[in-house]
């Protein structure tokens, strides 16, 4: 039990981001201050990106990729050297044209970074969202003298 708790895995991060998302939703729902609601949105976005990075780290560490030649390998790639990885080659035909030895396709495990990329885009979108939201809030404040969202009822029927 304690060993499971101390062996940090995906579950730890998922539980953490559930707590974070819960705090974000609670913040959004219990604040009447527009900036407070914005802070709640930021918490939820951070919970999502933490989840993405944790899944990338613990669950989807690498993608198998087929490369045309061994020279296309990038740093961090790991060659898969099981016999099943090698593509089936056609039997030796009567050589009409003596070709120079063609580069053999190789299979490598490439470290996956997709979760981190999504989190990166989340950071950028959150910055953009905060900029627009704050300019709207500023405009609202200039008009009504308050940032209480209850007062934004001009479109209320």
């Amino acid at each position: 039990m304690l060993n499971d708790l101390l062996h940090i895995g995906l579950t730890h991060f998922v539980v953490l981001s559930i707590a974070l998302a819960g705090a974000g939703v609670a913040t959004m729902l219990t604040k009447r201050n527009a900036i407070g609601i914005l802070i709640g949105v930021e918490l939820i976005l951070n919970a999502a990106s933490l989840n993405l990075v944790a899944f990338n780290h613990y669950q989807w560490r690498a993608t198998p990729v087929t490369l045309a030649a061994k020279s296309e390998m990038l740093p961090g790639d790991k060659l898969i050297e099981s016999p099943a990885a090698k593509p089936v080659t056609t039997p030796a035909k009567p050589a009409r044209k003596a070709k120079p030895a063609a580069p053999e396709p190789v299979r490598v495990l490439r470290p996956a970074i997709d979760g981190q990329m999504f989190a990166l885009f989340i950071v950028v979108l959150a910055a953009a969202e905060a900029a627009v939201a704050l300019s709207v809030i500023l405009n609202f404040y200039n008009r009504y003298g308050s940032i209480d969202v209850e007062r934004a009822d001009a479109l209320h029927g």
Partner: protein
Amino acid sequence: VTSRQPFDRPTDGGVSSTVFRDTKLQDRQQTTATQESGLFQIAQQASADALGPVTPALFFCGAALVVVSAWAIVFSSSIVRMSFFLLLTLGSIAGLFFFLEAELLGAIQLIVYVGGTLILIVFGVMLTGKPPHTRTAIRRSEVVLGSLIALVLTGGLIVAWLRLTLPVAVDAANQGNPVAAAGRAMLSTYLAPFEIVGVLLLVVMVGAAHIARRKTQ
């Protein structure tokens, strides 16, 4: 020999083309092969032994800071305190990104989120917070309803996680250089989102400046 070749060639050609075309199937087979080879367990062991007892301590410090400061945001009524606790939350999430070997993302979280978005929020607080409007108290019924909805959502997430079955993870030898990999991904796999985000940032910059400008009669 001559009579056998016409029979052999189409069969083999068919097999090799199937192997090359159905890469997804091949990937799946490869995944199982990797799992069976036991490399996964070895790498798991290696990463667990890398830092010894320091690793869980680091994680639990960061996680405790995240949870405590996030829930402090919920329970604080002053907007300035809320932004300070947001600073703590975002900073410790950046620490957890470093923990997850996402160094580039941790640095970007610190630079863009803590250094940019949070400063923006503090500016918003400064520009809008006059003393009578800083605290906007909410009704008791709204607190109960909001907490209830948050609890239901949290419970739903927990149930979803408990019901989720995950495939066994694939392993890589090392994660490589995340900066180089991210740069490569941005200019190949994620080229379209990268460009769209660039245009979006331009639009946001112009739009925010336009919306926020003081109207002069």
